């Protein structure tokens, strides 16, 4: 069991989401940066779908009521256990009573605390991912007690740490494909879309990232149609919105780009005022 002493600004439980319920309008959800979650779960020899804690912008504090193996991945917010600095992306043994907390931001914005066996919480529509209206809780609160499935897992992994590619946090290039309505853009617009540095506005969250720059748009809305995490839409006022993991299943704005899975994971570690540039595959 793990007690939440301080939940930070926005912390949730996430796995890889519930991807098969578009027919009843349920978003996919799941970890924003699935790449970092896979690293943590792999190091712990967990199932890749095991649930983890997703922390946005650090600031959390957890007390371990039992000895557990964990792995902290994703954004580096200078994690410490009992005030001693610990390494990211490596298997850590936390003693009973140990306190995990976070400090100064080094890279990224979303940190994952992966735990041996995964976090155990209610499963709804085949997933533990928090989402308002689906799961009973949709954000971690002070005093929450998180159960773990530590008994089920034996760490046989020979790897105890890996060096991750810093590119994941440093690159400003976001790989994508042409979206279904890309060809409706003019030649100039296409060049602008692919050649411009865009700035992330302060309206960025698990549902979507709105970009700052106004993009000249004469495209008409489309008949409401399927959208996916990573779909970049353009609004009638010329704002680009990149949909993220908690996005609706359908939308009516032209879909001009579709980010790759890697592109979504890289964007998920960026925040207000960061710049990005789309790169076509």
């Amino acid at each position: 069991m793990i007690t939440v002493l301080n939940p930070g600004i926005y912390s949730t439980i996430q796995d890889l989401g519930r991807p098969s319920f578009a027919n009843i309008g349920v978003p996919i959800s799941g970890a924003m940066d699935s790449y970092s979650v896979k690293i943590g779960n792999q190091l712990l020899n967990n199932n890749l779908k095991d649930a983890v804690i997703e922390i946005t912008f650090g600031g959390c504090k957890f007390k371990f009521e039992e000895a557990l193996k964990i792995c902290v991945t994703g954004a580096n917010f200078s994690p410490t256990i009992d005030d001693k600095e610990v390494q990211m992306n490596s298997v850590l043994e936390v003693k009973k009573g140990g306190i995990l907390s976070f400090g100064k931001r080094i890279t990224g914005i979303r940190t994952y605390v992966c735990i041996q066996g995964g976090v155990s919480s209610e499963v709804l529509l085949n997933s533990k991912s928090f989402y308002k209206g689906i799961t009973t809780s949709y954000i971690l609160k002070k005093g929450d007690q998180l159960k773990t499935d530590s008994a089920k897992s034996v760490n046989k992994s020979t790897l105890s740490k890996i060096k991750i590619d810093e590119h994941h946090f440093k690159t400003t290039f976001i790989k994508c494909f042409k979206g279904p309505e890309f060809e409706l853009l003019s030649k100039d617009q296409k060049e602008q879309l692919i050649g411009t540095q865009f700035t992330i506005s302060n309206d960025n969250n698990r549902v979507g990232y709105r970009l700052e720059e106004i993009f000249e748009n004469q495209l008409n809305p489309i008949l409401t149609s399927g959208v996916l995490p990573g779909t970049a839409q353009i609004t009638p006022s010329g704002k680009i919105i990149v949909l993220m993991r908690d996005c609706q299943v359908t939308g009516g704005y032209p879909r001009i780009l579709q980010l790759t899975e890697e592109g979504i994971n890289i964007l998920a570690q960026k925040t207000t005022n960061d710049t990005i540039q789309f790169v076509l595959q």
Partner: protein
Amino acid sequence: MHNFKLSYKLFGERAILIEWPSEISEIILTDILDFKNEIENQLKLKDCIVGYNSIVLVYDFVIVNSITKIDFLKELYQNKKGLQKQKSTHWKIPVCYDATFGIDLEDISKELELSSEEIIYFHTKAAYTVYFIGFLPGFLYLGGLHEQIAIPRKATPRLIVPKGSVAIGGNQTGIYPNESSGGWNIIGNSPMSFFDIQNQYPCFAKTGDTITFESVSLEEFISIKNQVKSNSYQIQKIQ
């Protein structure tokens, strides 16, 4: 049997978008559902997202041979048996149009130059088709609103629209399954539950079903609401 000219596009690494002509019609909806059935019988997909004139097929893997995949789908469409009557259900949805809930009735009554009674008459007279479910879990996209009561969305969306609100936005009508923000004009409230995660089927309706709204008094609304709470309410349906 209808054979439309469909377009097939790769949509990112793992999805294919199939589009019908850009219009809202029940013939297209039936064709979409026929084809979707056929596809789901043949392929194991991760998900299948239906829109007014489209399906997005989401595969479980990165698509490397898109031409082969699209050719397979084209052939499947050409050879599909077509117009197999899908099992659809007609639902009767109780709605209380009392001014307590229908907070925009007075305004739209002025704008449309119709009395509240006339608006309610037109709203309850039509049979609506469920085109698909999106926006929010359990939010039904309904077609078939009487043109006399079509009215544009509000210029500024409300931050909070209460759960169960029945509203009109343009030529569409819908019910908010949960509290959310929203820009449609609210004309009433339904005591029913449109999305309950505790149920085996969280949303009772599905694409292709039809519904009608039935006006109920405030007393009946409260009574149905209590039955819904105690799980004793039976939705009226015709199969």
